[in-house]
């Protein structure tokens, strides 16, 4: 095919630019890391703290990411309001937790109380997610793709400011669970109890979800619908019900994530869903959207990267207050993954139809 010189020039400059992009990022990471390791500002306990915190936070991202991934896998739609579903779980759990604390139940039976709080959070998140699905998404299922996305942005605003109106704009402090205070020591490494519990709970939830999707009948139906909706309907699968189940499962995970997040950060606020929501989406993309183990891996990866990043490769480059750029690291990673490996770590190659 005939291509003019200018077009060739443009192609070359684009390739040059993209390679420059990669090289700069790699250089920042490598040089920063080397300088930090030579500098030796942090000791090994601090590095372990970073990693453990990253794992705890990453497993929360992973739990939220599951909701994005499953809904995207089935409807090819970014559920922009999913971060708010997470927030609503944490919020409703807060009220239960403080009621249990006032009655003294939380201190007497902390485990039962925690399970109770999680169940309430799951129920609240699921209820709200189903309401949003029914009102804002279901009528738009046949519409062009931009339409449900805008509707989801609207739902996200609606939920945020509804919570602000109902419960006020302030920050609520979560009650202290005595059981989760302090540290445990494994092989000479001190780890905060809350982070261990959060990680274990998240992993258990994910295993449960994975079992549901891979081993049960409804899970099989979900996989079928995400492959091909029309064919699945012909096979006698009630597509509407599968979609509702997907939303419900994703929301239940987000509800648990809300409680775990509140256990680590000890506060809730109407706006708390936004940033974790976007990061969870990043995790989903990182792992390959539509892929459940990918979402888990992506979440952990993002959590660790984000927690290590500022100290590992930004600080030694002379950047003041690198922790302010923690979110920038996450977003840069999102952009890089989308540019250079849009199918994610574990993702299948996206066809034009799915992308």
């Amino acid at each position, binding site marked *: 095919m005939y291509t003019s010189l200018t077009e060739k020039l443009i192609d070359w400059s684009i390739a040059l630019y993209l390679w420059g992009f990669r090289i700069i990022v790699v250089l920042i990471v490598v040089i920063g890391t080397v300088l930090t390791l030579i500098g030796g500002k942090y000791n090994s306990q601090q590095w372990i703290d970073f990693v453990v915190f990253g794992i705890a936070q990453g497993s929360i991202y992973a739990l939220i990411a599951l909701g994005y991934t499953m809904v995207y896998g089935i409807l090819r739609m970014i559920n922009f309001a999913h971060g708010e579903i997470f927030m609503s779980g944490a919020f409703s759990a807060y009220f239960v937790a403080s009621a249990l604390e006032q009655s003294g139940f939380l201190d007497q039976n902390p485990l039962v109380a925690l399970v109770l709080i999680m169940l309430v959070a799951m129920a609240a998140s699921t209820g709200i997610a189903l309401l949003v699905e029914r009102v804002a998404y279901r009528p738009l299922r*046949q519409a062009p793709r*931009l339409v449900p*996305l*805008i509707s989801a942005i609207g*739902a996200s*605003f609606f939920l945020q400011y509804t919570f602000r109106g*109902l419960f006020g704009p302030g920050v609520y402090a979560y009650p202290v669970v005595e059981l989760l205070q302090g540290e445990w020591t494994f092989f000479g490494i001190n780890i905060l109890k809350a982070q261990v519990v959060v990680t274990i709970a998240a992993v258990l939830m994910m295993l449960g979800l994975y079992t549901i999707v891979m081993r049960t009948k409804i899970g099989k139906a979900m996989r079928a619908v995400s492959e091909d909706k029309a064919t699945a309907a012909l096979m006698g699968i009630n597509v509407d019900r599968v979609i509702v189940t997907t939303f419900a499962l994703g929301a239940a995970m987000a509800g648990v994530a809300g409680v775990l997040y509140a256990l680590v950060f000890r506060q809730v606020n109407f706006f708390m869903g936004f940033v974790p929501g976007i990061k969870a989406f*990043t995790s989903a993309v990182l792992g390959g959207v539509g892929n459940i183990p990918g979402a888990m891996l992506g979440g952990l990866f993002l959590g660790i990267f984000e927690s290590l990043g500022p100290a590992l490769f930004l600080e030694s480059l002379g950047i003041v207050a690198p922790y302010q750029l923690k979110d920038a690291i996450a977003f840069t990673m999102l952009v890089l993954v*989308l540019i250079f490996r849009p199918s994610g770590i574990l993702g299948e190659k996206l066809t034009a139809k799915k*992308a």
Partner: protein
Amino acid sequence: MNELRRLPVWHSVRIGLIGGVIMLYICLVGMVEVFGRSDIIERVISLGQVLLLLTGLGAGYLAARRAGEPTNALTVLISGVVAGGLTGGLLTGLVVIGSVVNLRAVFINASPALYNALTLGAGPNGAWIPLVGGAALGLVAALFCLLPRRVRQSIVNGLVGVLLAGLFSGLLRVILAARPGWSAELGRFLFASEGLTLAGALLFFILAGGLALLWSQSQATVRERITRLPEAQRKTLRWAMLGLAVILILIFPQISGAFIAQVIVLVGIFALMGLGLNITLGMAGLFDLGFVAFFAISAYTVGLLTSTGEHGIAQWSWWAAAPVGVLLAMIAGAFFGLPVLGIRGDYLAIATLGFGEIVRLLVGSDFLRPWLGGSFGILAIPKPWIGNLELAGPQQIYYLAVFGAVLVAFVAVRLRDSRLGRAWMAIREDEDVAEALGINLVQTKLLAYMLGGAFAGLGGAIFAALVGSIFPHSMNLLVSVNVVALLIVGGMGSIPGVIVGAFALIGLPELFREFDEYRYLLYGIALIAMMLAKPEGLWPSAAIRRELHTDETDETETNPGSSSTVPAS
């Protein structure tokens, strides 16, 4: 359960319950209290009360209309009363529960003040009042349902007229009071210090109702007379209208005062950005959720180049700095556009959202603070001068914004009708086919990003001049979402739609600053409602209207039960 559903009263119960939940929501979210502070008619009715009344009336009306067709007047009345009563009944329940349990520990708005407002000051003893009031509203709505159509329409028009006049009473009063003499007299007659006077409300009711009635009768003849005019005269008429519009636009800030002029400048800035995004998203179909990046880059460039404060580097005039800002925004468009060229659809939205957030985080960081001011921003940006005239306040910058918007709208129209515009639309419809037709995807897409960025950059430059200082927190994601939303609400790909959308989504919330708390709540509801009812936007372009219309018919053919799952009675 199914037995129950067959009863005619089932619909009334359902509508009543939904209405009641909406009422509870309005109360608990705090709207009654906040909206109750502004009166529609002074000391007669407040906006909060109007909201509650409208919900009750709406429930009654819907229930009555459903019962209307096959049955008699009595059923209509009963349906209305049942629905209205249930709607109010839930509020009664709220008052009763609230007087026993301290709901305020959870719902911050469940205060004694709310209960007093719901029971007209009677407190817990008056818990029956919402129930009876709701039933009465339902009855009124049902009676209204039985009126002839023409009468119904004039009543509705009259009430809408009163409501609008009451909502805008503050602004109208200020405008009228600015000139002494008959204008101030009229202002005093129509408007009280808060809301309308009773006489004013009556006047507006009669005026709006009557005029609407007259117009509906004579509309056809007027139209016909215009079409029967000879071509030359019709042309003169059109030019005369255009001239009138231009004069109105030119003298507007002098009539309206500084506040409204400022609102219009903001609308203009967002219209500029909207027109920019209209190229990237509306024409080329490239979803950009990080549009604020271009706005920020240009605003910061102008700020740095012109500022006389500590971060200023050149102390240029605005006129020299603005083109540089626009140019840099354009280059940024290319730089952000290049890596994401291969990304499609929703992924593109998220990637660009990432860009926008990165820019915001960087300008706000302590790392770049020595150069960009960190979270303290850039201060002391001088105003633009034209000769010896300083564009000091919003009333003068208004002209800059209007000029910019007109210029950009003109460019956008010319672009749309150009070869490039057609190439963009081809890409939007189908990338692969467009490429097969010989369109260079890389160049065409890049141009869309660059031009979109340039338009947003102009918006940023004017913003810097308007505000006089720039802070990173005004560069947040909400700006990008606002631009996308105004484009969608106005109508994608449609240039007049952008202007309409900017007025609806930027202008209206700015005018109702006192309800700022609920701005994004109402915004969210508006976005969802818009997508459900009119996804093509308020002023859609012809092509999109056609496309969505065929989609709708497809949907009803293939999936008849999807929109209403209510079994017929």
